[in-house]
């Protein structure tokens, strides 16, 4: 017996595949519409603990529940507080000023509460919670009745959703399998294939795009397009009897299309099924036309035949080998067309469709047989029928296994892939005639792409050679890698591209192309934003006479690969520029739906809003000069009388300009007894007139705002005044024509925050503040009152400043 040659299980020599470009190149124009990135960890997790929690191995991140609940209240106020808000809106005051005595009894000033909450936020983690008594008092009072949806229920739902989002963020398995498929050309010589991928803003359009594989693949003709009713999660394809069958999975629907064998034939939809529970897997049989395997998250596996319908093979909500919470299930075909594999996170079993209850065997088990690590779980199984009829690929988050169904449970090949994210996509290109099979592994969130080569038994039941990994694994370009080769952008554009190109990968497709002596591999990658990028790798025959460029670097040429080209080729650069141009064009177009303007309700009008423009005004300057002068002279100010403002804010008898002022007319009417008639007139004031007056008032406001700003330096005296003014009764209002001398802040409380408290003051101007007119202007209900208060200040003008104590 001759001594056998020992061959290494891994590390032998594989084929040399070299990237033709420095980075991935766009294969198709950018996906339409602006892509909204899915939530980032910082959106969901409580920010202080973010860094600590995101480290691998440390579970239990703190979800920022309160923030999300707050978002809900702000975004859907009608749903959250609708009816109670309507009932109680009089009793909430959103302004910033203090409340007047009578109103105080029945009104809560929300800004004060907000301040308390802010303080609470700043003190998060501090145990002295009694400081927030007001907040506690408020929540105690309102918790049970204020919310439209019972708070407990709402919180449960929100928490559930948050947990879901968070687990999706950690690992989203709905994309398993990938949503990109390549339909190879019909005849060997042809170089037109078809790319099947989802697109559109909601990724719910299915495209069949003919592609010409030249140096850089490009689209050929316009794509066939189908609109589906859900986001496409997976596109699976297989060629049977010269026809392509394409299975498309969205959450609740699975559909199957057929592309007939002729070149340029249009794809035809065949059948759709609807599932009650989201489907987690759809694979197309490589053996029989129109047969597919479907799994749902309820643990059911179906064999779906277009002619005979669905056949349930298994229904088990529990996992197979040990308990695991994940509802993910997967199924694929095996060497026997009636035997299907069925996988969950704990392993794989093979079921015979003719008698699924009795005939089954374990194909792979996370455990000792495969010497799995602790916590290792199945991520993606794939039937490798095209390479070897009985071989199977199983990936976990740590390793890749090749299994043979004839010798189940013990992997014939194992390799730790060391990818940062679990490989959700895999593609296999069989190597015929004793050449190595190529396997591509792709991860979603990190866009990693790895090329492995392995050699199995040759042919069918052929030689005895064992399965071995050929050559070192190789990293391919990711989509994000092309960012540095794009033309230089402005920072904000750069950031935008960074986000766009860094979108998680959503699919992977690859094909080998032979062109005479040259052989190349084309790898397509789809991102969640709907962009399709591709890269070409060229095969270098073993130690072929070196091309010219290589001859210049003779020493290193066999050691490490030649330095890859540093800049993209002119053709690739052109592609980038074109892609950018289309991208920008899509971006500049006005969005189809306008975003509702978002307003912070935290404090509708801050002090600064109510103040005039910054910087000393003329008035301030004058007063300051005056102050200086008096100080120099050692005198004292007897009256706050700006030098030029003669006479100052003395009570000015209201000048009847166009008629008696509203108050006088009302009082007169009331006195004479026909108050009712007056009210009728008052309320039937024509809309046009109201608008006119309102317009005029706005103009006046603008003017006034421009002029009046005795602000910053006088705040202290102002608050003093406001305190006084709260005590004193409102003085006779100034005529609106007179510019208010003092900042409105001090004067605001002069008018009651509740218009209803003096309903008998409907000056023509006030009518404009009726809820009707405010509604016309699109002002939300809960803000109308505040706005009314705010505007009433302008209408009535500030009260006369009371005499200073100094005088």
């Amino acid at each position, binding site marked *: 017996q001759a001594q056998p040659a020992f061959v290494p299980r891994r590390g032998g020599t594989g084929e040399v595949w070299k990237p033709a470009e420095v980075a991935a190149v766009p294969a198709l124009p950018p996906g339409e519409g602006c892509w909204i990135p899915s939530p980032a960890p910082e959106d969901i997790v409580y920010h202080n603990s973010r860094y600590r929690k995101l480290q691998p191995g440390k579970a239990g991140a703190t979800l920022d529940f309160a923030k999300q609940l707050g978002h809900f209240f702000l975004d859907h106020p009608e749903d959250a507080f609708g009816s109670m808000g309507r009932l109680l809106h009089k009793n909430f005051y959103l302004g910033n000023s203090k409340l007047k005595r009578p109103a105080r009894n029945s009104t809560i000033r929300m800004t004060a509460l907000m301040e308390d909450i802010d303080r609470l936020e700043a003190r998060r983690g501090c145990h002295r919670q009694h400081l927030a008594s007001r907040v506690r008092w408020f929540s105690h009072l309102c918790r049970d009745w204020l919310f439209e949806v019972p708070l407990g229920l709402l919180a449960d739902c929100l928490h559930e959703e948050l947990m879901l989002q968070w687990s999706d963020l950690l690992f989203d398995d709905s994309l398993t399998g990938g949503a990109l498929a390549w339909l190879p050309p019909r005849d060997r010589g042809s170089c037109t294939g078809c790319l099947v991928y989802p697109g559109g803003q909601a990724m719910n359009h299915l495209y069949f795009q003919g592609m010409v594989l030249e140096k850089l693949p490009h689209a050929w003709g316009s794509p066939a397009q189908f609109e589906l009713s859900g986001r496409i999660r997976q596109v699976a394809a297989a060629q049977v009897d010269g026809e392509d069958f394409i299975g498309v999975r969205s959450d609740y629907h699975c559909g199957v299309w057929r592309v007939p064998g002729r070149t340029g034939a249009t794809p035809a939809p065949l059948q759709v099924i609807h599932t009650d529970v989201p489907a987690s897997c759809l694979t197309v049989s490589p*053996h029989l036309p129109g047969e597919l395997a479907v799994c749902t998250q309820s643990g059911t596996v179906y064999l779906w035949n277009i002619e005979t319908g669905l056949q349930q093979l298994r229904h088990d909500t529990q996992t197979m080998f040990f308990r695991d919470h994940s509802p993910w299930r997967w199924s694929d075909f095996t060497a026997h067309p009636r035997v299907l594999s069925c996988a969950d996170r704990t392993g794989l079993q093979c079921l015979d469709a003719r008698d699924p209850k009795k005939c089954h065997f374990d194909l792979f088990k996370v455990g000792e047989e495969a010497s799995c690590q602790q916590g290792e779980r199945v991520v993606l199984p794939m039937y490798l029928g095209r390479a070897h009829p009985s071989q199977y690929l199983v990936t976990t988050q740590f390793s890749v296994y090749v299994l043979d169904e004839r010798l189940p449970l013990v992997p014939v090949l194992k390799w730790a892939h060391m990818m940062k994210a679990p490989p959700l996509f895999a593609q296999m290109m069989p190597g015929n005639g004793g050449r190595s099979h190529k396997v591509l592994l792709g991860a979603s969130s990190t866009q990693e792409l790895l090329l492995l080569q392995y050699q199995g038994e040759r042919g069918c*039941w052929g030689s005895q050679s064992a399965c071995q990994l050929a050559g070192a694994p190789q990293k391919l370009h990711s989509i994000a890698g092309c960012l540095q080769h794009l033309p230089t952008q402005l920072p904000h554009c750069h950031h935008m591209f960074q986000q766009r190109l860094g979108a998680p990968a959503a699919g992977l497709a690859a094909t080998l192309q032979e062109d005479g002596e040259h052989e190349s591999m084309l790898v397509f990658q789809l991102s969640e934003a709907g962009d399709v990028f591709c890269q070409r790798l060229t095969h270098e025959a073993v130690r072929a006479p070196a091309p010219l460029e290589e001859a210049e670097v003779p020493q290193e040429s066999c050691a490490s690969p030649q330095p890859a080209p540093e800049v993209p080729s002119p053709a690739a650069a052109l592609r980038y520029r074109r892609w950018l141009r289309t991208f920008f064009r899509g971006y500049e177009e006005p969005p189809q739906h306008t975003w509702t303007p978002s307003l912070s309700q935290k404090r509708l009008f801050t002090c600064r809003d109510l103040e005039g423009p910054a910087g000393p005004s003329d008035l301030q300057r004058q007063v300051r000069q005056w102050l200086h002068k008096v100080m120099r002279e050692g005198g004292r100010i007897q009256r706050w009388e700006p030098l030029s403002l003669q006479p100052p804010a003395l009570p000015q008898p209201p000048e009847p300009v166009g008629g008696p002022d509203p108050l006088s007319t009302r009082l007169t009417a009331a006195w004479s007894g026909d108050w009712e008639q007056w009210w009728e007139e008052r309320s039937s004031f024509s809309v046009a007139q109201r608008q006119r007056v309102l317009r005029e008032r706005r103009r006046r406001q603008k003017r006034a705002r421009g002029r009046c700003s005795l602000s910053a330096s006088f705040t202290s005296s102002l608050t003093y005044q406001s305190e006084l003014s709260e005590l004193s009764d409102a003085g006779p209002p100034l005529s609106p024509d007179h510019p208010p001398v003092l900042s409105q802040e001090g004067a605001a409380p002069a008018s009651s925050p509740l218009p209803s408290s003096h309903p008998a003051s409907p000056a023509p101007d006030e009518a404009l503040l009726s809820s009707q007119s405010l509604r016309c202007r699109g002002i939300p209900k809960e803000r109308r009152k505040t706005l009314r208060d705010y505007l009433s200040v302008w209408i009535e003008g500030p009260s006369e400043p009371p005499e200073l104590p100094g005088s």
Partner: protein
Amino acid sequence: SSHEHKLNFKKSKELCLSYIQDAMLQKQWKRAAEFLTFYVESLEKDYSREQIGPSEMIWRIGTEILCHHSHSSMREFNCFIEQMKTLGVKRYLKVCLEHVFHLLCHGQIDEAYQNLSLAESWRFGEQTAIQDKEMKLIQAYRGLLDYYSWSKQKSILLEHGLDGFADLSVEQEMHSSFRKAAVNLKEIIKIPGVWDLFVKCYVDLLEFYGDHDEARQVLNEYAYNSKFPANPNAHVYLYQLLKRHGESKKSLVSALKILHDIVPSHELMIDFNTMLQKSKKSKKRRLGLEVIFAVLDYAGWKESVKAWSCLARQVKQIVISEKHLDWIKQEWNCRKDWWPAFHFSRYLAKRNWLENKSLSYEKALVAGILQGKDCKYFKYVSHQGCKAQVKRFRMLKKFVNRHSPVYLRTS
């Protein structure tokens, strides 16, 4: 603070590791080696409690780099491994084993043997279960090398033995090799696992010294012990052993029957079918039909002329004798919903005709009998065959037409 320092240290360690990984995945071995020299510093403060510590990382990465780096030599590799052996006691045996594999792959059998003997004599404290298993593996590989030297000496002896000249020292050496090999190999195959290589060698040794019972017992144990993984090779070895010793047909059949149950698509099934077809017992012929139908269920056999001709022959036999038509009927019943699409589609008829005429002949015969003369596959192939004026296709057409009532009875 020291905590921050520790954190930073950890961070830079991780960063360095990711650089190494990046370089290795792009086959930049030189760059990876440079980064690895920096990574060695991480040994200084190794607080990690991870499953794979830095020292193991260095061993694995270093081995990988040295395997691929163009400037590395075997001497350097050995030197590196010797250092690694001293780096972690718990890993000593593992490193030794990997080193031995590397030496074997480079044809340095003697060095490998020395290393194995050295590792075998290594003792450190109390052995853990894992170390115990590793030690068993080391002994087994030494046994394997002993076996190879035994077989080398054996072939020398046989050559010279023919000349009538026997070297006593060679013979003695051979026997001592046998003893060493047998002891170690026997040990490893007691542990549940897949030990095809060791089992084969051990059985070869036993057979040479005429210990057939022991050999058969070893193989029986290997094949039927439920603690071992279901290994079709075990049954194949058993079958081969039985065949070599000229065992009865019955025991051969029973051995293959089990293989058929485990792996219906095994290549030995063709032999099995031929064996059963020749049998006089109708029960066995029935099994033969079952076996060949089962073989053709598998995608891997779809285009095998051999398998199709086996089926065609048996089906033809049954049809001509007009006995046991129910066998065909039974087999066909559970396949008639998918075989037509799987084997007998029009597309396949065209392709088979183009690519392999004899395959299409055998398949057309089966299709014609199972599905009747109107079957797409049969129609296409017989039409093409008659057009091409091939005699056997004309005969085929006649045969199927004559026996078309059979189809009515089977369906």
